[in-house]
């Protein structure tokens, strides 16, 4: 059996003059959450649709658990589930009916399908809305129902195409919890996103895709290390101690320290965040009071910027304030 849930080499898709996907290589290990990060129009959806047997590649092919997506599409479909970019539940039916329909289509008898539907609605916090038509659901509820419909029979591989785009922060967190729970249960998840934070929080590994090509691949830590360095910002209670503080920081961080416009503030680039802790305690030992200390973790946006020269969609910047 193939060790990879997804294995593609040189996958291409052309629509007329547009090359939507331009030679994508992917090797997604089983049981992992794999992020597919890229801006709008990068080719994420097209790649997912090829992997989910909905679109035929223009060149080359891919294997899902060793099955060819073109030649052996039925075997692939038996192992996967797709939650598309736009919610693909029936607006005119209730949440419960949508899930029962999926259960029946997947070979459950009506009673078993009804039981599973109830179970999923409860798990996804949709019990109260079970008998309401999906048309009247909020964006977050609809997304959760959409994901529930994809796991009526737990798939071995789940494709989630931008599962949290357009959701409020609370709904987003719920979707993240669902993804983590599924991964814990052994489902491999391929998740596309435009949000750096999302890939960072959920994915074990990720591929950065731009204009149909994978421009970087690795764990989030590897990607960050390969490009970006973080920065430490310190604000002192007493501006008079700035020179002392600068000397200490230069020694322990072994990098040049920058004097900010604010007369009490200093900043420095940082390769190893662990040293920030040491710097903080040395300042304390020297009796220099710190009013504000922040460690700007390198964001994936910086990674993206360095790789492509463009910013991705605006996501919340990650800053850990000590």
């Amino acid at each position, binding site marked *: 059996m193939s060790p990879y849930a997804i294995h593609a080499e040189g996958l291409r898709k052309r629509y007329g003059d547009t090359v939507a996907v331009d030679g994508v290589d992917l090797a997604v290990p089983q049981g992992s959450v794999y992020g597919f990060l890229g801006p709008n129009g990068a080719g994420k959806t097209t790649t997912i649709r090829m992997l989910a047997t909905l679109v035929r590649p223009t060149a080359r092919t891919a294997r899902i658990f060793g099955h060819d997506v073109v030649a052996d599409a039925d075997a692939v479909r*038996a192992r996967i589930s797709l939650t598309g970019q736009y919610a693909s*539940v029936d607006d005119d*039916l209730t949440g419960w*009916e949508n899930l029962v*329909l999926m*259960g029946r289509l*997947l070979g459950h008898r009506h009673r078993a399908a009804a039981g599973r539907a109830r179970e999923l609605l409860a798990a996804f916090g949709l019990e109260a809305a079970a008998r309401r038509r999906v048309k009247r659901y909020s964006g977050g509820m609809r997304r*959760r129902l959409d994901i529930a419909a994809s*796991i009526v029979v737990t798939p071995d591989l789940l494709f989630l195409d931008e599962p949290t785009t357009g959701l409020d922060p609370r709904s987003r967190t719920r979707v993240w919890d669902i993804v983590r729970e599924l991964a814990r*249960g052994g489902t491999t998840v391929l998740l596309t996103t435009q949000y750096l934070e999302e890939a960072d929080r959920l994915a074990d590994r990720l591929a950065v895709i731009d204009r149909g090509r994978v421009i970087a691949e690795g764990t989030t830590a590897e990607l960050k290390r390969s490009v970006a360095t973080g920065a430490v910002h310190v604000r002192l209670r007493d501006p008079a101690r700035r020179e002392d503080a600068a000397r200490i920081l230069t020694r322990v961080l072994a990098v040049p320290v920058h004097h900010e416009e604010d007369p009490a503030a200093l900043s420095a680039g940082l390769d190893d965040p662990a040293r920030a802790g040491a710097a903080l305690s040395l300042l304390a030992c020297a009796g220099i009071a710190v009013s504000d200390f922040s460690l700007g973790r390198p964001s994936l946006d910086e990674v993206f910027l360095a790789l492509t020269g463009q910013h991705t969609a605006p996501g919340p910047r990650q800053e850990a304030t000590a």
Partner: protein
Amino acid sequence: MPPTPRPARHCQPGHAPPAPAAALAFAWRAALRIRHLPDQLFDVTVFPLMMLVMFTYLFGGALAGSTGEYLQSVLPGILVMTVTMTTQSTAVALNTDIAKGVFDRFRSLPIWRPAPVAGALLADLGRYAIAATMIMGLGVLLGFRPAAGPTGVLAGVGLVLLFAWSLSWVWTSLGLLARTPESVMFLGILVTFPMSFVSNVFVDPATLPGWLEAFVDVNPVTHLVTAVRGLMHGEPVTTETGWVLATCAALVAVFAPLTMRLYRRER
């Protein structure tokens, strides 16, 4: 409260349902949609009843001397017309599914691939049967007296349902081909209106100008109406029935494979 989706206990991945079960599940979906949107049934309930009453009393006196007599010939015509005009709703529903992305999910399931189309057509037969029941019921109340009795009526209704089902394949092709549900609806009206009205449903074709009469004579609806009238009133219509059956066979032979091809086609 974090949600805790658990694996399904009842069914392992890879157990595709048998083809009829999948089609039945889609038919169930269509039935649910009707329950939630009962106005979807207007075209097979209110509309035909209104047509029947309206035409019987409006034209009966002028066209056939008496309403009672006109009813005998117009009822089979209205049955055919209603069912023909309602066949296009399949196409609209199918196209809406595609536009909304519901179809992507269905197409990525390990099910018998034509099941969504087959299920929709199955549900449509139900709709046509409702229309037929409504019209026959009201017709009998108003004084429709088929000479061939219940057997003749059943044969006539059966032929109408067969024709409608065959014609539906044209619409499934169109539903898969068209870009928007609105264009499907427009095309549907463009075809079914002339097909229904420029026929022998309401008037005797002999009273029409020659060029129009020529169209009426080749219109399959005309043959169907003649055949259904004959079957219900016990007149010999073997030739007409043969024509209708041949038309049905031709429609299915061309448009069923076309629908399947369009269905498999990627979007």
